């Protein structure tokens, strides 16, 4: 990896942008957005440290705006720049400041301190559950659907789906009104008489009530849990591995080499982000994004991103991926991508499947009832990340796959590329009908070396598949896992 080449490329790009800003007629000159997307790409592959990228952008902005202190209008904002604005723009990007040490007693926000759980009591435990239990709590009724149980060093939780009804509003509320979910009216006991509360995962989004923490965390070797809805008999959840609902044993897994360079892997993730960010069921000719849309801004920087990755020596000039990206842009009506490589017909099968979906003129009729399939299958480690599949859910016309990703996670640095560096994997599902669905990170709860992630399937499932093949791709390898599904439906 050529870090100096990476920084040099970004600085030369800023120079070209600077020159363009001095020549208003230079319509195709790079601008701050280009510097941002290229800087994000270089930091995403580790070729440039984020502070340097931020400094280059900040200095570029200072250089451009200081030249417009007395002009009629700033070309970027359409407004004149005051000296106070010049002074205040950007944020300080000083280096070398040690990060403040965590205050005593302060941990990572997240799962909390395991109660009686003893470290080293055993390996992580993932158990498919597949139990639906009706409940009635005052004026609120519904169903709690336990998809799976996951216990790791950070605690224990159920991955669940909720169906909530209220007399005032006879609609499914699980996504929009999670405050109605009566977590605290459920009681949970284990085989040793230990009692637990169900808790909404702290730190996670209230609109994501799929992670239910057991508080305190139970010991790692309990055999079952009795979960009792308010005023109803308890339902027993067996936690022994290899139980009647275990999916690990039925999972067929194969691993193949991928040997992608860091640049190729990033381009694949960007391509798949484009694929999953395309509006649903557009009319033919309506795929094109407006020039200022994030999708078009990212696509407009592809030529520079590819050149920057080559300069950083993380992408070979002979790589086939840029040509695939060019085809993808053409198929999605994304113009001005600047990719020098000619398009190719050699696209991965999942991309072709999703492109075919986008070319449809009308929505496909759905035969899919709202329901879920319990899962608990851990995939072989990919690039240091271990992914466990914990449930597939289809509600309100949307399909999601719940996973737990364990492994080192980079510090979150959102950027214009809109890719999730906590989950740097290409993730696809092929259902028994043969169609591919991209799995795109939708929500994430991160803490202590693991991330609970909700992956939204694009497009959503349209019929209850008997099985799915999960294809997870990292830089080093690709994993394929075939899992049988047993769907349970909401009432």
């Amino acid at each position, binding site marked *: 990896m050529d870090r*100096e080449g990476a*920084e*040099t490329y*970004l*600085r*030369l790009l*800023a*120079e*070209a942008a*600077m*020159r363009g800003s*001095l020549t208003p007629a230079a319509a195709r*000159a790079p601008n701050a957005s280009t510097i941002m997307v290229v800087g994000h790409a270089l930091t995403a592959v580790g070729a440039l440290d984020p502070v*340097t990228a931020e400094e280059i952008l900040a*200095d*570029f902005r*200072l*250089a451009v705006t*200081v*030249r417009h*202190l*007395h002009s009629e209008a700033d070309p970027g904002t359409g407004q004149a720049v*005051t*000296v*106070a604005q*010049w*002074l*205040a723009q950007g*944020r*300080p*990007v*000083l*280096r*070398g*400041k040690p990060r*403040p040490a*965590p*205050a*005593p*007693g*302060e941990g990572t926000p997240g799962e909390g301190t395991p109660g009686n759980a003893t470290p080293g009591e055993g390996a992580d435990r993932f158990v498919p559950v597949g139990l639906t239990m009706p409940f009635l709590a005052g004026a609120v009724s519904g169903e709690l659907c336990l998809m799976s149980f996951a216990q790791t060093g950070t605690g224990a939780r159920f991955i669940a789906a909720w169906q909530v009804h209220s007399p005032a509003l006879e609609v499914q509320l699980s996504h929009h009104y999670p405050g109605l979910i009566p977590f605290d009216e459920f009681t949970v006991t284990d085989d040793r008489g230990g009692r637990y509360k169900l808790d909404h995962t702290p730190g996670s989004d209230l609109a994501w009530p799929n992670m239910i923490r057991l508080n305190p965390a139970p010991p790692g070797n309990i055999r079952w849990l009795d979960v009792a809805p308010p005023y109803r008999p308890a339902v027993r959840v067996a936690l022994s591995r290899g139980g009647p609902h275990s999916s690990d044993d039925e999972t067929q897994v194969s691993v193949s080499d991928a040997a992608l360079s860091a640049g190729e892997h990033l381009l694949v993730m960007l391509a798949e982000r484009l694929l999953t960010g395309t509006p649903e069921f557009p009319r033919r000719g309506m795929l094109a994004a407006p020039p200022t849309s994030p999708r078009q801004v990212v696509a407009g920087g592809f030529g520079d991103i590819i050149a920057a990755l080559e300069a950083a020596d993380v992408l070979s000039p002979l790589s086939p991926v840029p040509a695939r990206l060019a085809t993808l842009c053409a198929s999605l009506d994304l113009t001005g991508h600047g990719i020098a490589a000619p398009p190719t017909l050699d696209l991965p099968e999942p991309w072709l499947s999703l492109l075919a979906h986008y070319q449809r003129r009308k929505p496909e009729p759905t035969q899919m009832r709202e329901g879920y399939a319990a899962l608990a299958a851990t995939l072989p480690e990919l690039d240091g990340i271990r992914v466990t599949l914990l449930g597939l859910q289809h509600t309100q016309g949307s399909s999601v796959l719940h996973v737990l990703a364990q492994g080192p996670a980079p510090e979150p640095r959102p950027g214009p590329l809109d890719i999730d560096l906590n989950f740097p994997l290409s993730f696809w599902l092929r259902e028994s009908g043969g169609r591919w669905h991209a799995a795109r990170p939708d929500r994430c709860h991160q803490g202590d070396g693991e991330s609970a992630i909700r992956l939204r399937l694009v497009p959503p499932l349209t019929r209850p598949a008997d099985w799915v093949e999960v294809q997870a791709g990292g830089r080093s390898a690709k994993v394929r896992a075939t899992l049988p599904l047993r769907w349970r439906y909401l009432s």
Partner: protein
Amino acid sequence: MTGVPNGPWFTSLPPCETLVPCGQGQHAVRWEAGELRLASHADLEAELVLVALGGEGARCVEIAEAWLRHAADLTVLGLGPRGEADEVAVSWDDVDAAGQAARGGAGGPGRWGWKLASPPRAAMARAAIRHQQYQEEAGEANQRRLDMLSLLALGTGFQVRLIGQVAAAHADRLDEPDEHGHSIRPALQAALAGRVALVAEQWLGIDPDQVEVSLLPPGAGWGSVELTGRGEQRRLLVSLPAWWLARVWACGLALTGRHLVVAVERAGWPDAQVLALRAPGAEPVSLSAHAAGHPPGAADTPHWEI
């Protein structure tokens, strides 16, 4: 190409001077032989000590301090002018306004108005540390920007001389990392490329985006200039040392008598001996350059003729 045998990098630059509002009057600030001189502040060292002890400094003194602080600051290369047509005009009113804005505070995390019903003590402690760190960083960033604004307000002549000073400070030390341990080559190469591209446009009429510039290590000769390809594939490939920025560009010698000056053989003012190219790919020839005074509207920028 270093200070020997041609003398210091600024030998081909005449002095320049400007008036700066200072106290109740206007004081002359003069650049001469690589240094700032404050005629109205005879005992500059004593005044600097006074400022260091917390006393209020005169603006001239603050400028002299800022000049010293940024005499090797690579940021100067990115902020300063790229060529004659790239005027960076900052007035002393701008500097005053910036100073007032900086004293008014640059905002901070508080403006988002985080509010917790019962914030945990640990989180509060961490937030306080972060806030303090942010304030320190914001203060340093503001100071740096105020410095830059003051230095730019000195005018074009001082701006190009500071660029020359910064380039000269690093030109022989390409392999030495900066204070953060990072290579200085990318910033120097970008600074060189941005300026060579505009000179090449004037020289050959080539699109500046078709000029590719690489940084030559010190001691590797004057470099090379070659033209390749046609149409959109046309490229001017230029390889020059970082010294070119100081000894040639900052001294106003880059394009002299329709020649691209690639090196200075004998520095001097108002006469210098330069190595120059009539066309890309040609062998450089030794030419005598003579300073012909300032062109209209380009005060303090030397103009040379063959």
